[in-house]
């Protein structure tokens, strides 16, 4: 009973939050709602007994949205409303509706064919952090190392993206001297 109430409350809250993200014209509202939605999603993980993943969801996504804020602060006035300039409205709407339907079908497919079953169901008594550690280092070892390479690539890409800006930024001393 408690689980059902919690599930529906969280679902409504999360959908509402992401609704604000899509429909709000103010950058600050959109990003704050995104952060809130991402944190609320962790509630589902806690409900399913996946404590570790719930906490990971909170830690990683707060950081990620924080980076988005910093990115926003770098480029525009966060308080101003943004007017979206969409040229091909019809195409965009058709594509987004189509992709939404596809996603629903993909998610529904396993439910209709065979009932979804957890490959590694949570065992009571054994914390799921231990389980994740063992599985990560036996079965999913290669994806794990690939993830490291991906992170490295992301790091380099992030710096290359703003490299010009780093070199352009004048130091305070130079500004004070009036050199730049």
């Amino acid at each position, binding site marked *: 009973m408690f689980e059902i109430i919690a599930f529906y409350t969280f679902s409504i809250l999360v959908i509402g939050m992401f609704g604000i993200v899509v429909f709000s014209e103010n950058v600050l509202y959109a990003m704050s709602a995104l952060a809130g939605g991402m944190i609320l999603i962790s509630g589902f993980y806690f409900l399913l007994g996946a*404590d570790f993943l719930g906490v990971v969801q909170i830690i990683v996504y707060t*950081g990620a949205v924080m980076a988005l804020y910093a990115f926003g602060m770098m480029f525009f006035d*966060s308080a101003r409303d943004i007017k979206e300039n969409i040229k091909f409205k019809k195409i965009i709407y058709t594509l987004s509706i189509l992709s939404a339907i596809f996603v629903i079908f993909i998610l529904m497919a396993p439910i209709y064919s065979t009932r979804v079953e957890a490959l590694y169901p949570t065992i009571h008594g054994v914390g799921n952090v231990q389980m994740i550690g063992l599985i990560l280092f036996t079965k999913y070892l290669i994806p794990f190392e690939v993830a490291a390479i991906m992170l490295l690539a992301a790091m380099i890409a992030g710096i290359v993206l703003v490299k010009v800006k780093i070199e352009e930024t004048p130091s305070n001393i130079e500004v004070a001297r009036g050199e730049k």
Partner: protein
Amino acid sequence: MIETALIIETVVKAVVVLSVVAAMGAFATFIERKVLAFMQRRLGPMHVGPYGLLQLAADGIKLFTKEDIIPQNTIKPIFIIAPVVAAASAFVAVAAVPYFPEFTVFGYTVHPIISDINVGLLFVMGAASVGMYGPLLAGLSSANKWSLIGGARAVIQLLSFEVVSGLSILGPVMMMGTLSLIDMNDYQIGGVSHWLIWKQPLAFVLFAIAGFAETNRTPFDLIEFEAEVVSGYATEYSGMRWGLFFIGEYANMITISVLVSIIFLGGYNDLWFIPGALAMLLKVSLWIFLFLWVRAAWPHIRPDQLMWFCWKVLMPLSLINVLITGIVLV
């Protein structure tokens, strides 16, 4: 009905812990003024009540009856949410922290932890990282230059030191093989010689430094340093809204003290002849005192020194700590 009992128990615990932590936080502000005053050969608050003890109540009344000002040009909803985020995340972190050994009241065993999840340590870290949104949102929504600078400083400082605290805590986690704070406490049940501080001294120092930075205490208080950024992200806040930031900060201080005590200093196990609960209280008070002592003794550092210190000194050190611990353990 087990579930109803559980819900009632949780509600009662939440209310008790919330009020106790808030009261301790408020009391800590009084202690802070007194300790700082004694260190500077002053008396501190003396006029209201015995030894100025009622100063607390006076300050409370002042905060509660203050006019609620929301300056112009602010983005109102975000401006209102920001302090609530800061305080709420600080108190949610408290939910997964055990304070005392379990005890029995009227034949009913009480576990002094609101909810025992087996990833308690990460839950506290997660709540702390949500807490970063408080200063950030306050800075962005205030439409004030000082607030914006303060918010940006808060974000980079807290983000950087979150990396250090996460890496430094890995060593203890490797030794104890658990993320549950209760198991960590039980690991050190054998007395002072079993405390983890002897096995992980580097991790202890790193975690303590990161703790100072994350609660923005003195050597790292660039976020609210008056001479540079007025009051940082809280410049436009007054009255109860400012009070929420303040309470959140002190609640964070208490949480960090409790975490350090549990992970490195033997937690709430009995210490010689001192019972566990009292030992815990002593350790936490010692840490709060240390926070104040450092504030009285140290100047604060420049932002560029802070970043240099974090990314080029503490980060490599904590990585080395993880490497050494790994090699020794296997």
